[in-house]
């Protein structure tokens, strides 16, 4: 399965992505947790201490003459699997964490790092990985062209009106992907996003406590109802995946 998690800032994307990656790994899956946010936070939610390293220049090369987004390819002599091995970090429960890098000073994250990761993911996406992707908040969509590997997107909303507005905008924007809603910090009735939530993830103060300490929710509060709800999401994803595997044979 290859999923991306999108939505307004602060709705819980990273907590959900990190918890989902860990829980899928505990169910025996080979999980690649992919952090496409240039201000990455998924490492913390997995239980890693973030580094300041970026995927260096030279992993992907720019080929002149092609339109910009298509012009990046992995350098000759390298394979996606080998580069994944080199630049990914092992995370708890056997999750593999990959991140292009982060903005460190007054300059943008280097394009070559982003495109190197895109090419690595493209290269390994059909070799049995479950890919769980966390994306930056508002420009989730700026990653449209980094999401071609994803089979479906989950748009996370909270009861707040601004997150529902963003969710509606994302619905219009990500029309190429099957979009499923996840209700986060749900306290009452779902809001008017026009989407029925696949899973309702309840509001839980322990998420804030884990965030305060910068530790994974699944380690600090394994009994949290949020962990239980994300585990339900993991079960849904697995069921859908197994159904899809059976379909071509039958």
């Amino acid at each position, binding site marked *: 399965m290859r999923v991306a998690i999108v939505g*307004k*800032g*602060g*709705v819980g994307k*990273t907590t959900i992505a990190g918890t989902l990656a860990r829980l899928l790994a505990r169910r025996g899956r080979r999980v690649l947790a992919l952090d496409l*946010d*240039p*201000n990455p*936070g998924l490492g*913390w939610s997995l239980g890693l201490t*973030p580094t300041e390293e970026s995927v260096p220049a030279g992993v992907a090369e720019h080929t002149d003459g092609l339109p*910009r987004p298509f012009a990046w390819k992995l350098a000759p002599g390298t394979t996606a699997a080998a580069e994944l091995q080199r630049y990914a970090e092992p995370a708890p429960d056997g999750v593999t964490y990959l991140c292009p890098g*982060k*903005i*460190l*000073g*007054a*300059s*943008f994250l280097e*394009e070559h790092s982003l495109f190197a990761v895109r090419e690595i993911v493209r290269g390994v996406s059909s070799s049995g990985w479950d890919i769980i992707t966390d994306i*930056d*908040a*508002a*420009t989730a*969509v*700026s*990653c*449209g*062209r980094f999401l071609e590997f994803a089979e479906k997107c989950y748009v996370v909303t909270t*009861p*707040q*009106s*601004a997150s529902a*507005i*963003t969710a509606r*905008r*994302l619905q*219009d*924007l*990500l029309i*190429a992907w099957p979009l499923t809603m996840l209700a986060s910090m749900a306290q009452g009735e779902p809001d008017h996003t026009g989407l029925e939530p696949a899973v309702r993830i309840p509001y839980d103060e322990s998420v*804030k406590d884990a*965030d*305060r*300490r*910068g530790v994974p929710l699944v380690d600090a509060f394994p009994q949290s109802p949020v962990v239980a709800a994300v585990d339900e999401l993991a079960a849904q994803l697995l069921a859908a995946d197994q159904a899809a595997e059976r379909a071509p044979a039958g």
Partner: protein
Amino acid sequence: MKIAVGGKGGVGKTTISGTLARQLARNGSTVIALDCDPSPNMGIPLGLTHDQLLGIKPVFNFLVESGHTHHDPKPDPEDMLHRLGTTAADGVTLLATGEVVRRDDACMCCGSHASTRSLFGDLVGDGRIIVGDLEAGLNDLIWAKPASEDTLLAVAEPSVKSIDIARRAVRIGQALGLTRIYAVANRVRSPEDERAVADALGVPVFVVPEDPTLARADMLGVAPLDLDATSPAMLAVAAIATRLAESRAPAASVA
């Protein structure tokens, strides 16, 4: 005077910057609220109705619809303000830089989006106050490129992730030579919360306490300032407005 408001997604940038713009206007300044978020919502704290909010035409989208390409010269920011500015509560003029409505618009590094992402730098701040509500993360701070005399508010809540991003926003401000850099510790519930932000950022800190009024306003989709102007968070933002206005002439220092 120009004030750039940056930080992680969901820390409260829009609520703080929108309310700040209104408080500055209530104190007698001419204020432009510049919404730099590709999913623009600054109209909410500025008191616009839902329909008004969705009726806003951002600069980028106007340019695309009128056939402007990134090969054309940059648009005149004053002309854009005149054509596309919306009058919001307390006389604040709201201008949105660009809403991403097509997948192809969303280019983080190049294309015509860049010409609108630098509007914060292009609008003249003399005799008026420009409050820029930046997109989540740090990209927009680099696009906005505040000048050394501008003010940066790095908003954080008591979480490791948001403090890390605010810390890097402060570093960017310092690298750009800004002297007026402040942290805003939002949703503070205890002295420890305030200290966590202050210790990590090393710049003067404005504290905005945790306030259920904001969550209530969010649910209703109304401006918290209109729901209860005397709630603790609203009073804290009013104090920021007063402090920033006072510090306009001399270099800032918060005791």
